[in-house]
C-alpha cells in the first residue's frame, strides 16, 4: 500500500520536473530569436514615426479600451444607486445623479449615444479590485483621489467635485464641534477614505472614537438613525444628500469642521493612455462648455464667430479629436445630450437636486472663459481645449 503511494509520488515529481524542464529550452536559439524580433520592432517603430509625420496616426489600435467599448456598443461604469444627487434611482427606476451623468457624457462622446451605458453597482470596498481588474471602463462612484489609489487602483482623470469629510450628529446631543466627539461611537462606510481619516482624526485629537463599519451606506444610515452610533461620518456633500431624505431633517446637524480633502472624480483602469486621455478630454469639454456659456438647448451647429467655441464644437480647427479617436463634433454629442458642467451640477447637486450651494464655493468655475481676468473663485478647472 505504502509502496504504491511512494511510486505515485515519484511519478508526480518526475512529471512536474518535465513540465518545468520544458520552460528552460536552449538559450542560444532564443537569443537569436530575440535579436531578430528587436530588429523587427525597430523597423515597426520607424514606420509608426513616419505615419505620425504624415498625421495619419492609427488611433483605434487593436485591443485598446476604446475599440473594446466601440465593439461592445456600450460603456460600462462602476457606480452606486444609494445616495441622492450622486447615484440614485428616480421614480421611473432610471439611474440618475452627478456620477451617472459623467458616465453618460463619456458614452455620448465615444458612442454618440448618452444612453449606451451600463451601471455596475458596487460597494465602496469593491472599488479598488473592480477598477484594478479592468472589468469596467470607468469608475465613477464618489471616488476620492489619493496618491496610493492613483498608484494602486487606476488613473484619476479630473477632479469634478471638491469635497471634505464631516460629521452628522443629532441636535439634541448639544455638541457644536467635532472635537467634542470624545468616546463617541461613529458609523462609517467600509472601504472609504473617511474610514481611514476617522482614525487619524481620533488619534490626533486623542478622542478615543469607536468606529462601527458597515459594507453598505444604507446600513450605516439605519444604525445612525436608531442611534446605535452617535455620529455619522462621510463626505459633507453626501451627509447633506443623505440627511435631506430624513423625515426629521431639522433634528440633525453637520458639525462645522471639515477634517479632510476629498477631491472626487472618474477613474479609468491603468495601462491604456488613449482611454485615460479620452475621459480627461470629455471632462474638459463639460467644464469649458460652461465657461463658454454653451448649454444643451443651444449647441452650435454652425460657426458662431467665436474661435474658441467653434473649435470646441468641431466647427473649426481641432483640439486633438482625431488623435484620441473621437469624432470631430464630439462636443456637440456630449453637450447636446448631457449638458455642460453647470447643468449637470444644477440638475443633481444644485437646485434641481439636493440643493448644495455652488456660487462662491470651491465647486464654482475658476473663471468664465469669456472674461479670464475676472475669476469666480472656484476650483473647477481643466486643461484648455486646443
Amino acid at each position, binding site marked *: 500500500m505504502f509502496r504504491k503511494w511512494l511510486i505515485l509520488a515519484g*511519478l508526480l515529481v518526475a512529471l512536474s520536473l518535465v513540465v518545468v524542464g520544458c520552460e528552460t529550452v536552449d538559450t542560444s536559439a532564443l537569443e537569436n530569436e530575440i535579436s531578430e524580433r528587436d530588429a523587427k520592432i525597430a523597423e515597426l517603430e520607424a514606420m509608426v514615426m513616419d505615419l505620425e509625420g504624415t498625421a495619419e496616426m492609427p488611433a483605434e489600435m487593436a485591443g485598446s479600451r476604446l475599440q473594446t467599448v466601440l465593439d461592445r456598443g456600450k460603456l460600462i461604469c462602476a457606480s452606486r444607486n444609494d445616495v441622492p444627487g450622486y447615484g440614485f434611482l428616480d421614480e421611473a427606476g432610471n439611474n440618475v445623479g452627478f456620477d451617472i451623468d459623467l458616465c453618460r457624457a463619456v458614452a455620448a462622446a465615444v458612442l454618440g449615444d448618452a444612453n449606451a451605458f451600463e451601471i455596475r453597482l458596487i460597494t465602496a470596498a469593491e472599488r*479598488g479590485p473592480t477598477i484594478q481588474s479592468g472589468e469596467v471602463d470607468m469608475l465613477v462612484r464618489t471616488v476620492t483621489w489619493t496618491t496610493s489609489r492613483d498608484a494602486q487602483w487606476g488613473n484619476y482623470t479630473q477632479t469634478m467635485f471638491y469635497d471634505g469629510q464631516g460629521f452628522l450628529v443629532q441636535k439634541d446631543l448639544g455638541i457644536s464641534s467635532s472635537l467634542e466627539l470624545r*468616546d463617541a461611537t461613529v458609523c462609517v462606510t467600509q472601504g472609504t477614505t473617511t474610514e481611514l481619516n476617522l482614525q487619524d482624526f481620533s*488619534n490626533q485629537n486623542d478622542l478615543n472614537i469607536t*468606529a462601527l463599519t458597515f459594507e453598505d451606506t444604507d446600513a450605516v444610515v439605519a444604525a445612525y438613525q436608531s442611534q446605535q452610533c452617535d455620529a455619522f461620518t462621510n463626505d459633507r456633500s453626501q451627509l447633506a444628500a443623505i440627511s435631506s431624505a430624513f423625515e426629521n431633517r431639522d433634528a440633525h446637524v453637520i458639525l462645522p469642521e471639515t477634517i479632510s480633502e476629498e477631491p472626487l472624480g472618474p477613474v479609468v483602469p491603468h*495601462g491604456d493612455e488613449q482611454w485615460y486621455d479620452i475621459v480627461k478630454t470629455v471632462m474638459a469639454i463639460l467644464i469649458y462648455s460652461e465657461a463658454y456659456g454653451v448649454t444643451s438647448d443651444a449647441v452650435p451647429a454652425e460657426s458662431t464667430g467665436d474661435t474658441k467655441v467653434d473649435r470646441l464644437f468641431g466647427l473649426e480647427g481641432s483640439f486633438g479629436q482625431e488623435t484620441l479617436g473621437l469624432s470631430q463634433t464630439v462636443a456637440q454629442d456630449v453637450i447636446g445630450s448631457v449638458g455642460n458642467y453647470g447643468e449637470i451640477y444644477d440638475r443633481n447637486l444644485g437646485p434641481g437636486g439636493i440643493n448644495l450651494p455652488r456660487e462662491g464655493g470651491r465647486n464654482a468655475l475658476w473663471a468664465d472663459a469669456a472674461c479670464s481676468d475676472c475669476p469666480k473663485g472656484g476650483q473647477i478647472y481643466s486643461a484648455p481645449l486646443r
Partner: protein
Amino acid sequence: MIMIEALRGFAYYKGVPLWRHALVLQWTLQILSGVLVVALVTTFFTNINNTIQDREIPHGFSFLSREYQTPIGQHFLPYESSDSFLYAFGVAATNTIIVSIVGVILATALGIVVGVARISGNWLVSRTSLIYIEVFRNVPLLVQLFFWFYVVLALPPVRQGYVFADKLYINNGGVSLPWPSASNWSAAWAWLAVVLASLLVAMVLHRVLTRREAHTGQSSYPLVSGSVAAVAMSVAGWLFVNAAFGEAPFAISDPAPQGTFGRIAGGFTISGGLMALLTGLVIYTSSFIAEIVRAGIQSVGHGQTEAARSLGLAPMAALRHVTFPQALRVIIPPLISQFLNLTKNSSLAGAIGYSDLANVAKTMTQTAPAVSIYLLLAAAYLAMSLTYSLIGNLYNRSIRLVGN
C-alpha cells in the same frame, strides 16, 4: 514473424492484453489524472501571474509588517491603530473564531433540542419544531441577519437603555455585563496555569476513582472528589498568587456609562452587531442541525428503543443511553459540515457591522494589495475549516463501531 511475436510479447502482460490489464489501466488512469491536476494548477497560477503583470496589479506581502492605521470596531484582543497589518489580521481572525466557537456550541444545543422535539409524540411540540425548521432553513441567511440587525436596532439607544442594578446594561449598542479583568497579566497567567493544572489533577483523580469503583464495587464518588480537588487547588492557587504578586489575579470590572455620549465602558460588551450575527447564525444553523439530529435518531432501529423501554428505562433515559449514542455515528459527519458552514457564513458579518475577518480584510484592501489580502483570507478560512474537520474526524473515529 519473430518481430510480431516480440510485439505480442510486449502487448501482453501475464497473458492479458495491456489494454485490458487491470494494473495497466489503473496506472494509466492515475498518471492521466495526475497530469490533468498538474496542468490545471500550473494554468491557474500562470494565469494569476500574467494578469497581475499585464494589469500592473499590486501584489506581495511586504505590507504585513506595516502599521495598519485603520479602526477595528470591536476586538477581543487589545488593538491600537499603530499595530501591524499582520497583528490586525490576527485580531480580526480572533473575532471570527469567537463567533464560530460560541455559534457552534449554541447552534448544536438548540439544534439537538429542536431535532428531538421534531420527533416528539406531542403533536404541538413536533409541529412547532417543524415550522421552526422550515422557516429558518428556507429563508436566505443574509435576509435573516438583516432582520436580527433591525431587531437589535429596535432596542432603545444607549442613553435610554435598560439598566439592571447598575451591573447589566441592555441597549442597541449591545449587552454589557460585569467581567473579570486583570491588571497584572503575569499574576493572571500564573493563576490560570494553576487552574489548568488543577483540572488535570481532577481528571486523573476522576479516572482513578471511577476505575476503583468499577473494580471493587465500593462507592468512591469520582465526580465529587474531582470537583472538590479542582476547586480546592484553584482557591489555594488564588491565595498564593495574591500573596506572591501583592494583588489578586482578577478583579470584577463593572460596566458604567462614560463621557458625553453615555457609551458603556468597562465590564464586557457583546456588541449589537455580534448579537445580531450570533442570533442569525445560531438560528439558521440550528434548523439544519435539527434535521440532522432527527435523521440520526430515526436511523437507529426501532427495536433498540423498544428493547430499552422493556428493560425499564424511562423514555428520556432510553434516548440518552441507548438511541442517542448510536445516532451519534450518523450525526457527526454532516454536523461537522454545518460547523464549517457556520464559520464561513460568519463572513456576512460586514453587512451588519461586526468586524469579522472578512470585513476587516475588505477594509485592508484599501491600503494593501487586494490579491494578497484575498489569498490570506482564503488561507485563514481554510485553516479554520481544516482544524474543525480534523477535530471532528478524530471524534468521529473515537465513536465509530469497534472492529469496523
